[in-house]
């Protein structure tokens, strides 16, 4: 394996970790806020 392979692997790990964290936080926020809005609306 060349040095660049290690560099690419490290950047891929960081990208997946950061993007995964943000996507999960965004999805849970949207779901929870949509549920709160739906329950707040008058029937």
């Amino acid at each position, binding site marked *: 394996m060349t040095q660049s392979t290690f560099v690419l692997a490290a*950047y891929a790990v960081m990208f997946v970790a950061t993007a995964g*964290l943000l996507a999960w936080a965004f999805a849970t926020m949207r779901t929870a*806020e949509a549920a709160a809005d739906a329950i707040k609306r008058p029937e």
Partner: protein
Amino acid sequence: MHRLANPARFIRFAQPATRWALVFGALLTSVGIFGGLFITPPDYLQGETVRILYIHVPAAWLGMAGWGGIAAASFSQIVWRHPLSAIAGRATAPAGATFAAACLVTGSIWGRPTWGTWWQWDGRLTSMLILFFLYLGYIALAAAEKERGGEGRMAAIFGLAGAINLPVIHYSVLWWRTLHQGQSIGLNGSSIDPSLLWPLPLTTLGFSLLFTAAILMRMRAELAEQRVEARLRRAAT
């Protein structure tokens, strides 16, 4: 900070803050990574692998800063019983755990071509691994307390006690001079050449903003869940 302890005021602040943290975080991180991958020269000793520095250092900083945030939120919860403290602690833990894990994995990937090994029970590596396990413990404890309807005081005590590991991580390279190199950046400057150093503040600030955005989004999610639970409880009575 005390003013933001009001949930309604916090939501008004968090909505635009999340957006700006995401935009500027993505921008700074992209510029820093581009500079680190394509503009800076390879190091004369480490060669191309020095480029891992631009993601490994922010990951290490955020792994530690995350627990610093948990400790501050825990202190605030125990002393002032702020309504947002437990939520802030629970929201910070997954982000901190993610970056602590990213620090361990990127460090290991850097270690293989540089040290000739993926892992070594060195003081810095071991104390960082302990921090990751502390995060897992905090997440489990806080979730269990939340499920039981508790205030999260046990998690707060755990958050404060776990902060003892932060100076251990910081000074580990001085106390146990084993494999991990000593401090390269301190209050008196840096031993890294400026031609290699400049993308590092960009990625550090960029990832810090993305980390902040993740915490704000998790806090908003927890507050929305609390509103739903309160409404359902009122409807049931």
